């Protein structure tokens, strides 16, 4: 049984395939931000509480500060950079803009990924389901109401 301290891994991020050698101790968020220069996913608390680092890993919403990069070998990852097309925001992103659902913007990438994951699974969530879906994402501007309204608008 191989026990490794580093390994070359392959990941597909937003449709692009990357190969990188990573140390076993490297967190997924650092692979994304530091190795792949995808700095849209943020590090807020680094303790798994704030959700600013949320990404979709193999169709599952996760906090990328609590996943090792080496665990993502062979995985398909979606980050906030993958949401919009060249010029076109997603309906959810447009709703965030229309409803002033971002103030400082720090939590926004994580909020967008959580809401994206929600609307994929449940295109018409109830108010309670929206609130539950972003429970793992903290907005320190406390602008939750506009975020809630934006997700609701995007679901209609």
């Amino acid at each position: 049984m191989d026990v490794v301290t580093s390994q070359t891994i392959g990941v597909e991020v937003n449709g692009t395939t990357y190969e990188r050698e990573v140390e076993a101790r490297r967190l997924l968020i650092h692979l994304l931000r530091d190795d792949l220069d995808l700095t849209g996913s943020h590090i807020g608390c680094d303790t798994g509480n704030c959700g600013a680092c949320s990404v979709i890993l193999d169709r599952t919403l996760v906090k990328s500060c609590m996943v090792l990069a080496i665990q993502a070998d062979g995985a398909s990852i979606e980050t906030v950079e993958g949401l919009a097309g060249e010029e076109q925001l997603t309906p959810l992103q447009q709703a965030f803009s229309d409803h002033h659902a971002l103030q400082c913007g720090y939590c926004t990438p994580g909020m967008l990924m959580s809401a994206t994951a929600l609307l994929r699974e449940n295109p018409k969530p109830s108010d309670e389901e929206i609130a539950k879906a972003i429970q793992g994402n903290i907005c320190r501007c406390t602008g939750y109401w506009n975020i809630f309204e934006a997700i609701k608008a995007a679901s209609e």
Partner: protein
Amino acid sequence: MLLSEVAYARPATLEQALGVLAEHPGARALAGGQTLVNVMKARAASPDVLVDLSGIPELKGIELGSDGTLELGPMTTYTELIGSSEARARPILGEVCAQIADVQVRNRGTIGGNVCASDPTNHLPPVMVAVGAEFRVSGTGGERTVPAEEFFLGVYMTAAGPGELLTKITIPPGRSDGFASVPIGVDGTCIVNAAASLNGGVRVVLGCVGATPVAVEPASADAEAVRDAVRDADLDPPSDVHASADYRRHLAEVVAARAVERAGKGS
């Protein structure tokens, strides 16, 4: 954050996993990582090798026997359990898992990780004791079955010792269970929690009031009888920034009575 240097293995079979654990005394099993990775960031644990259990099919899955017995693979995530039609045979399981943390944590965190962490504030240890779960513990020397009330040995300590793994959780049939807690914020860490089961007698198990779950058996499901039983248990809970020991003793009576009331409604 940069973790301390650590090695990594992702075995494909239980035998390989037990082999790595046996070869490396400083190795630790990595389940969903929603506790261990943070503990490593804080340098509160510094394993030499992480043995990632996510590639072992036999540790996954939920099976419902014809008599209503549930067999849970310990690497089942909270989200998988919540969505499992089989797991509805014992509704309290999904109900409590849905109260743990948030979507992202529930997507990665596992049933086995929750119990093996043996954090006194975790949700599942009191639930497992209340429903009479049995844990299969496997090592290179063989396997044994440990009842839930003997599994939790102390803070962060369980009957699954060095080199061993929790490999199956068996839940007997039953429906009249209830859970109540006072958490820090909705679905946050519990200040005090209680699980109750009325499947033949009244069994209430309190969490967060000692190093391990505390079981009490009230004379009846009457609220006063439950509160008396909790008072008679002479609890010695910790005091911290969230609650004094006295307040925890008070909350223990309250949540125990609520858990029994919910169990009476069939939960």
